[in-house]
């Protein structure tokens, strides 16, 4: 009985220290979400403007044939940028992204394309190396706080491969979209070749029917498109960073809750065990005393 009591005490101590760690992680994550969200907000105007500019050029200069806008006739390879995180402890965050990436892979292979993964984040890279999957490129070490130069580096690699005749013919991004503190969705987006999106006719800020270009439409497009890709990747990285922290906060919160619940159950068990031990001791003493009393009575 005594051994069980000691065992329970030890478990309670260990659960308690785990709960302390997860609680601290939860608090750290919550404070980081705010910062990540601010960075995300700060990048929104740039992305909005650049998207508007690209829409303006592409819808105005339909005659411009730029390698980055035209879908190749026989696409053979597709590049998929998979945005994961560097650190774990974030619940299903990375698993969800990788699952979606696998689904996209299957879909693309169904179209007869071979898939080249480009991966950011240690978890995604580890996942690919473990399976001996060849990667077109991998970047680690900045997922918590992505800088624009990181997005630029990724974009350059992708665009170079896209321009190369033997390189990739399509660029997709699999990342996590930050909707709110509670909702983050894994999204798949095709970045290049540009997708024609039907905009609502009711929109008040319609793009004017013509644009003048300095110097020419082709030149503008030439320098605009890489910026556009960079901006899309940067947004994906920022959203993923915010989502990672949100997912971590949630995972750590449920871990803390579980630990507290476990502690409650274990404490109850421990009290029961202690009570049982005391009861047993008392009954032993009473039994012993009775036996002595009976023996004394028998002698008389």
């Amino acid at each position, binding site marked *: 009985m005594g051994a069980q009591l000691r065992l329970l005490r030890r478990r309670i101590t260990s659960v308690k220290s785990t709960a302390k760690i997860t609680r601290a992680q939860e608090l750290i994550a919550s404070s980081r979400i705010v910062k990540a969200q601010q960075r995300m907000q700060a990048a929104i105007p740039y992305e909005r403007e650049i998207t*508007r*500019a690209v829409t303006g050029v592409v819808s105005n200069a339909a005659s411009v044939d730029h390698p980055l806008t035209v879908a190749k006739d026989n696409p053979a390879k597709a590049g998929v940028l998979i945005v994961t995180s560097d650190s774990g402890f974030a619940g299903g965050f990375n698993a969800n992204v990788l699952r979606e990436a696998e689904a996209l892979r299957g879909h693309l292979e169904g179209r007869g394309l071979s898939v080249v993964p480009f991966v950011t984040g240690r978890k995604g890279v580890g996942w690919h190396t473990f399976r001996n999957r060849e990667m077109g490129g991998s970047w680690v070490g900045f997922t918590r706080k992505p800088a624009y130069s990181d997005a630029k580096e990724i974009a350059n690699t992708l665009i170079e491969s896209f321009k190369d005749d033997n390189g990739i013919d399509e660029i997709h991004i699999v990342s996590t979209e930050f909707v709110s503190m509670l909702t983050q969705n894994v999204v798949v987006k095709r970045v290049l070749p540009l997708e024609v999106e039907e905009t609502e006719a009711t929109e008040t800020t319609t793009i004017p029917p013509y644009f003048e270009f*300095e110097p020419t439409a082709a*030149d503008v497009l030439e320098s*605009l498109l890489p*910026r556009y890709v960079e901006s899309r990747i940067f947004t994906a990285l920022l959203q993923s960073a915010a989502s990672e922290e949100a997912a971590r906060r949630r995972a750590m919160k449920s871990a803390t809750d579980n630990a507290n619940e476990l502690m409650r159950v274990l404490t109850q068990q421990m009290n029961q065990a202690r009570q049982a031990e005391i009861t047993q001791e008392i009954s032993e003493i009473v039994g012993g005393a009775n036996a002595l009393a009976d023996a004394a009575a028998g002698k008389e």
Partner: protein
Amino acid sequence: MVIAKTVDGEIGIMPQHAPVLGVLVEGGVLRVKREGESDLVAAVHGGFISVADDEVSVLAEAAELGSEVDVAAARDALDRAQASIEANQEDSDAAVEAKRARARLRAAGEEV
């Protein structure tokens, strides 16, 4: 009025300007002339200027307001860039650095 420097040369945009999309030069100075206020000057490195719906938006890879430029740091950067250009004529990174530093100094109202 907004004055910017595109690869084709300087462009001045007045209200009601026709829609334009221009590529900005590396290390240019952007000037916004305002009524009743002093000019807003910024050093702008690369990027685009787009005019649509009577709205001018400037998308730059890096930009700094003239009033926020650290003049000493910019001078220092310019000196360093020029030193490395003298040491190596084909140092294109240094040339860009020098251009940027000059734009920052000009934006801050310094003579270069």
